[in-house]
């Protein structure tokens, strides 16, 4: 799942190396509109609905946190 998420992030922001960041949001790699775009892609790929209350920066800070959110929302690898 992490490699699929990384591909999505690289499609959204090809100019950044996400492997070099410890916090995508704090490091400025993802802004709120990037997160919305990523949510749309995740929901489509995994057939899930991400709860609005889960759309907070800490759930988009790393590949693991995003993968955890997908699993929490019912997504399977």
């Amino acid at each position: 799942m992490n490699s699929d998420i990384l591909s999505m992030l690289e499609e959204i922001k090809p100019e950044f190396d996400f492997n070099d960041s410890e916090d995508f949001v704090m490091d400025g790699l993802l802004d709120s509109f990037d997160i919305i775009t990523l949510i749309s892609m995740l929901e489509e790929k995994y057939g899930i609905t991400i709860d609005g209350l889960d759309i907070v920066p800490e759930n988009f800070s790393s590949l693991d946190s995003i993968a955890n959110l997908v699993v929490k929302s019912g997504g399977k690898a």
Partner: protein
Amino acid sequence: MITKFRGKKITSMLGILPETVGLFDDEVNNYSFPPKQTMRLKKIMGYDRHRLAKDTSTVSDFAVYGLRYMLENKWIKKEEIGAVITVTLCPDHFVPHISNIVQDKCGLDTDVMCFDIAQGCCGFLVGLMQAFMVLDHTDKKVLLINGDVLSHKVSKKDRNDYPLIGDAATITVLENGGDDEIYYEMHTDGSRGKALIIPAGAFRMPSNPDTGVMADLGDGNFRSLDNMTMDGSEVFNFVQVEVPPMLENAFKRENMTVDDFDWFLFHQPNRFMLQKLAEKAGLPQDKLPMNLVENFGNPSGASIPMTAIYNCRDSLINSENKCCLSAFGSGLAWGVVFMNIGKLDYCDLIESDL
């Protein structure tokens, strides 16, 4: 505040749009973000086209245009009007007020009560309460004007705000009648007010050459202190946290369910936020129109009546509709109203050359 009103009704609704249409596709290159990245937002957020007032047009211009239309087409007679209430964030001047300008230009009697209220996203709900209270003291009709020309205050290089803003005005006619009960609830949290702010231009920070300097303040958008700025994440989280429990508690309090309503007529921030809100609150999306931003832009306080007119006109003309109205945004403020709207005398959407 939670309260109830009885025996008040909406009898006509008119929407007034500027004829100028701004296309998202044409504006993509104004922003400092890669066009491909920006274009992804088109479907997700509902960005497509928005209505833009001319630089010289003000809210009073739209209100006068609309009221003259109503008078000429015999929707209402001047002598039937007891009060004019305007709710806006965009006054023509600090003084005189827009309602007074409308009273003059439309030749209304001097015993017509006129006042303005400064409110944004919740402007229709706040205006409704004022209209209901005025109706307790008159047998005449009350005109509620909601309008904004916020495109004048948003930077064209601000991708967060410019694509979603639309200019428009609505005029809602209210009068006494019937025995229907209206549920009314409104909340405010001023501590989060700076999430949506126009920093300069009033008395705290008067506009000057420095406040007009455009700069990237760290999010890739270019705006000045004279421009509106919104913390999108803060506003989104506020809506997701505050609005669903407010609706759920209001349904319980009134012993109602979502199935009891014909329409959920909500403020229109963007499609994504409304979809997430509908999912969280368990609202049927076929009864919750979400298409104002993609067709006209978000017209701030005029969003609820404009949504009703654009999406539900035939239903509002031909039948009684149990409506759940909800607004949320600047202030920050959020509220909900349950009321019957229907068998309207008139309901229309017109374009102006303003």
